[in-house]
């Protein structure tokens, strides 16, 4: 009886769906880690994702190749990231204000362009998408194969990205420099690290990764762009980053947890738990984590402060 209950909510189908739901969050939260570890708050992830989702669709529409579309998303996300970097690093704009402006801009820009280019409101025409693949051997492993054996290539890219970001941050000299700029920019400057350049690169990378997360929605998971299709996922990615204490594997764990909550909500609704309450979970957990009730989440020390060279 109990076992049946548990397997109704936790089974290979749900976990595979959780992984799919988590993928855009993983991309964007890795982006968030880059930016915030360098000392720049990035609440503009949502806007960067939305721009990536749109441009991914647009480039795919013109080239008929979703992989080139993915490059378009990467590039456009990076450009939005650069805007945030120029504002925050060069002109010392309040980073939260800049992020807010980017989020609002992205909503206006994508809908404006959708209507101007295609003369449609709501959703874009269908475009080719990156198709799901079957992993040769893994696919036949019981349970595991059902969960990860048959997924979109972007799902695998996201998982590999986590490992890469982890190695970069904690096992390379560039990662050490990036973290030191976020913790003690003055000390970093003293030993010859270019604080401004480091932050520029980090924030542009952040935007590029968020752009990929958005493109997953429009040209991998679905095959079209829809108005405001990111629907707050940039903020859930931000929450995953915080809940994961600004570490790649922590953020991955949080993204999977939030993805699971997303995947299981319909089944919970069937047994009488309103899905709206399940949807609140990521946000409430993040507040609880920040308050320190489950191991305090402490942001990088110099986050939000523009650096002034003396």
């Amino acid at each position, binding site marked *: 009886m109990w076992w049946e209950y548990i397997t109704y909510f936790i089974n290979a189908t749900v976990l595979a769906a959780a992984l799919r739901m988590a993928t855009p969050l993983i991309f964007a939260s890795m982006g968030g880690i880059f930016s915030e570890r360098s000392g720049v*708050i990035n*609440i503009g992830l949502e806007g960067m994702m939305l721009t990536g989702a749109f441009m991914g669709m647009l480039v795919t529409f013109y080239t008929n190749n979703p992989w080139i579309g993915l490059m378009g998303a990467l590039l456009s996300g990076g450009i939005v990231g650069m805007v945030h970097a120029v*504002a925050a690093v060069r*002109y*010392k*704009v*309040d980073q*939260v*204000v*800049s992020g*807010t*402006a*980017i*989020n*609002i*801009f992205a*909503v*206006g*820009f994508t*809908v*404006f*362009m959708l*209507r*101007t280019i295609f003369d449609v409101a709501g959703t874009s025409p269908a475009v080719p998408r990156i198709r799901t693949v079957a992993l040769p051997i893994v696919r036949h492993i019981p349970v595991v194969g059902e969960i990860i054996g048959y997924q979109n290539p972007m799902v695998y890219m996201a998982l590999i990205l986590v490992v890469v970001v982890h190695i970069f941050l904690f096992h390379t000299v560039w990662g050490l420099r990036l973290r030191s700029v976020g913790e003690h920019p003055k000390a970093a400057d003293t030993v010859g690290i270019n604080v401004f350049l480091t932050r520029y690169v980090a924030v542009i990378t952040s935007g590029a990764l968020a752009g990929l997360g958005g493109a997953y929605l429009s040209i991998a998971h679905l095959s079209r762009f829809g108005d405001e299709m990111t629907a*707050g996922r940039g*903020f859930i990615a*931000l*929450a995953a980053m*915080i809940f994961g204490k600004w570490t790649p594997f922590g953020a991955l764990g949080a993204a999977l947890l939030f993805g699971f909550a997303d995947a299981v909500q319909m089944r919970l609704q069937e047994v009488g738990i*309103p899905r*709206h*309450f399940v*949807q*609140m979970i*990521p*946000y*409430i957990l*993040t*507040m609880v984590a*920040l*308050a*320190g009730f489950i191991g305090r989440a402490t*942001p990088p020390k110099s986050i939000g402060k523009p650096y002034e060279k003396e």
Partner: protein
Amino acid sequence: MELQQSSLSSRNLLVPLGSVILALLVGAVFVLIAGENPITAYRVLFVESFGSVRSIATTLQRATPLIFTGLGVAFAFRCGLFNIGAEGQLYVGAIAAAIVGVSFGDLPRVIHLPMAVAAGMAAGGIWAAVPGILKAKLGVHEVINTIMMNFVAYYLTDFLVTGPFHGGRWAPETDRVFPTAALERIFLPTRLNSGIILAVVAIVVVYVILWKTKTGYEIRAVGFNPGAAEYGGISVARNMVLAMVISGAVASLAGVEQVLGVHGRFIQRFSPDLGFMGIAVALLGKNHPVGVFFAAVLFGALRTGGAAMDRLTDVPRELIVIIQAMIIMFVAADELIRRLFPKKRKG
């Protein structure tokens, strides 16, 4: 002493005006992309938002909720707090006002309307108190918590409006509030309602609280320098929580006005980012109640004119969202503005 300045002198107007001009220039590029002449588009925008008494009334109606969210955000800014949660606060305020509005049909108007308004303010105040307390007691940055509270508010009101308070119609909305709880229309056929009077009252009240009371002095002192305020015997924690509560209560009136004065009911996800636009209004208005009024009227005009432009030209109404985002960015990049518009030396 930037936060302490209460006058809107010409020097203070440089950055807001420069930002609006630059944002309109960026907007002009997008008008060209849409294949329209910027002068034609902007003329339509202006005429349709200020060209007649009726269009001015519509502009004021669109400005009303922005006055509330702008005032709310500005109030928190004065205490050094960034309330990015006005959106969530106005949603809980709106649902609370709607719940009171659809209940108690036998109450007289003099009790029912104030009760609905007070319920909305209380809900918004409580909603904002949570991040306020977490900031004051545990030092958690209010930005993340107010963002998180926005989403909790969306889902909570989604639940209430599709569940316990779902109205008789199929759409995700409550029933109509009783006439005894409605803010009456004051300029038909526009939807301008007595909420605008409430907004003017709120402007005066916020001004008086901030500059004519001890509480306001303490709140501004905390915003200016929390360390010095604490040293001078002012409780930083108490004033932070109080500032957030007032900020949330004022911002929530935007939702109250939309429910009781415009839609007549709570509609799921009705707000076109009124809370986030409040941030723009507060920044553009330099966190001063009078500045907030003019900034809100400008944004109200953009929305009114934008809708007409959408109808009459090839330019999608989203142009005004782009312009608003650019205004936020430019107004915060005051260093850039001051360079582009160098100050003329005066005696």
